[in-house]
């Protein structure tokens, strides 16, 4: 499996997945840290992928998602957005609905 296939497979097989700098236990960037805080507030289970482990992950991910920056949140195989969108959707109550449908 190529790295790009691996990424697409991970996004498909994990109903909630976050590509971030660092890990959920140790975020390495303010925006990734904010994303983790939002995820924690919702108490949602998710897979985290640390893009700092291999610079190629970010290249392949962004090519696939058409999204240049990190973090990136995917639910049910679809890009929900980066940090700003997660904040906005959290504030509007939309994110709760999105997570409620995760895995369904």
């Amino acid at each position, binding site marked *: 499996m190529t790295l790009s296939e691996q990424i697409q497979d991970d996004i498909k097989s994990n109903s909630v997945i976050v590509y971030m700098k660092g890990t959920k236990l140790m975020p390495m960037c303010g925006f990734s840290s904010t994303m983790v805080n939002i995820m924690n507030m919702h108490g949602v289970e998710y897979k985290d992928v640390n893009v700092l482990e291999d610079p190629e992950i970010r290249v392949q991910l962004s090519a696939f998602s058409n999204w240049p*920056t990190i973090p990136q949140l995917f639910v049910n195989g679809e890009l929900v957005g980066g*940090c700003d969108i997660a904040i906005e959707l959290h504030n509007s109550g939309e994110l709760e609905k999105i997570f409620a449908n995760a895995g369904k």
Partner: protein
Amino acid sequence: MTEESVKQRIESGLVGSQVQVLDTKGTGDHFSAVVISNEFEGKSLVKRHQMVYATVSDVLTKELHALQLKTYSCKEWKQEN
């Protein structure tokens, strides 16, 4: 980069948009922008951000490390204020 150069890129990429840019750390590489454009009407947040990112794609993740975004259609902007 400067606030003005980021603003000019977004405005020329999204014709008719109104853009406010802030250099959030004062280091010329982290910016926050509010973008108001009729082009956003009826589009998802992901699509809107992709439209703005496209205007700075040559510098984003290079000179431009981070671009925080708030996007409004003209209608939403009026409702907000």
